[in-house]
């Protein structure tokens, strides 16, 4: 290739970048699932960054990973809770009376595939879709349990921050450390589809 050819190729590349950028901005603006460019989706968590250097394959097994996450959540000002406590709250009569509320902070697809029975969905990336229904329920509840996939998933933490900013008392909210993965591992009932859809798969316990 000659120098002119190289220059031409780079100009072409620049044109492609400009077209791609324009295409992307337009598609994001038109898409109902587009991102709000000005919104900070990852606010700084009190006590340090929410971002963790925690790969899926941790030495020491799931137990030590869970303990590390537990400690980090406490240090960040959250209230971590584990499966026995979550199960107690889920079986408490308060749950049926909406005095205890479960909040699933995963996306539409994951929620529809299965969630803790009766849990509200709150995809924190699209708060305007969920808050009108969810917020009144959280404001009257004495206990709000927020969960996501579990493990290194941060969505429950950011969901708690969003709910706190919307007026839900921080002391009423707790994060289920093991999340939905641990719930399933314990073979507990799972509801599919919409909330109170009635489509519940019972676990073996």
């Amino acid at each position, binding site marked *: 290739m000659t120098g002119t050819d190289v220059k031409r190729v780079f100009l*072409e590349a620049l*044109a492609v970048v400009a077209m791609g*950028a324009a295409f992307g901005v337009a598609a*994001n603006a038109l898409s109902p699932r587009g991102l709000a460019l000005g919104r900070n989706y990852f606010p700084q968590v009190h006590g340090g960054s929410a*971002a963790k250097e925690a790969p899926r394959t941790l030495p020491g097994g799931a137990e030590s990973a869970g303990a590390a996450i537990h400690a980090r959540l406490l240090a960040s000002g959250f209230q971590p809770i584990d499966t026995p406590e979550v199960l107690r709250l889920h079986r408490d009569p308060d749950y049926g009376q909406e005095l205890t509320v479960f909040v699933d902070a995963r996306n539409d697809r994951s929620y529809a595939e299965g969630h803790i029975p009766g849990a509200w969905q709150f995809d924190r990336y699209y708060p305007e879709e969920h808050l009108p229904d969810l917020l009144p329920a959280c404001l009257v509840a004495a206990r709000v349990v927020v969960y996501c996939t579990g493990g290194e998933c941060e969505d429950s933490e950011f969901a708690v921050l969003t709910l706190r900013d919307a007026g839900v008392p921080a002391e009423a909210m707790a994060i289920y450390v093991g999340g939905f993965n641990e719930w399933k591992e314990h073979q507990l009932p799972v509801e599919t589809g919409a909330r109170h859809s009635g489509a519940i798969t019972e676990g073996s316990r």
Partner: protein
Amino acid sequence: MTATPSTASGFRAGAWAALGARFFLGAVFLVMGAHKALHPPDFLGALHQYHLFGNHVLLNLTASVLPWMEILCGLFLLAGIAVRGCAVVTLVMLTVFSLAVLMRALALQQSAGLLFCAVRFDCGCGSGEVFVCRKLLENVGLLVLAVTVAAGPADPWRLRHRL
């Protein structure tokens, strides 16, 4: 001057190789870009973990634009439009992605005390959780294809050689 049979067949083989590289690269970018464009929050979350952006607007903008850039490049490569320009763009993107994946994998390796190739995470590449060595090898393969398309012989089956 006319081409001898051996140079003609050599040209044909080079042209087929260039066509294969262009199609493969285009298809990969189209599929990966579409996966990211369909799930913007997933890609945003993956991009956030690299800590490359000091500003959330820049992070959101990158997460919004990059998948569509990949889709556009994929479509152009498949159709044979502005092929060399698109190949250069994919080359730059692949280089930046690979360096970012390498840096993050090294950070994860250090924090967890793992062997480098045992590190596994969702790199935001559109293929879910992957082992880092495999991902980097894939990227090297794609880089070779991008270089082939950008600097190699032109295949004659392009819709438009330049923009």
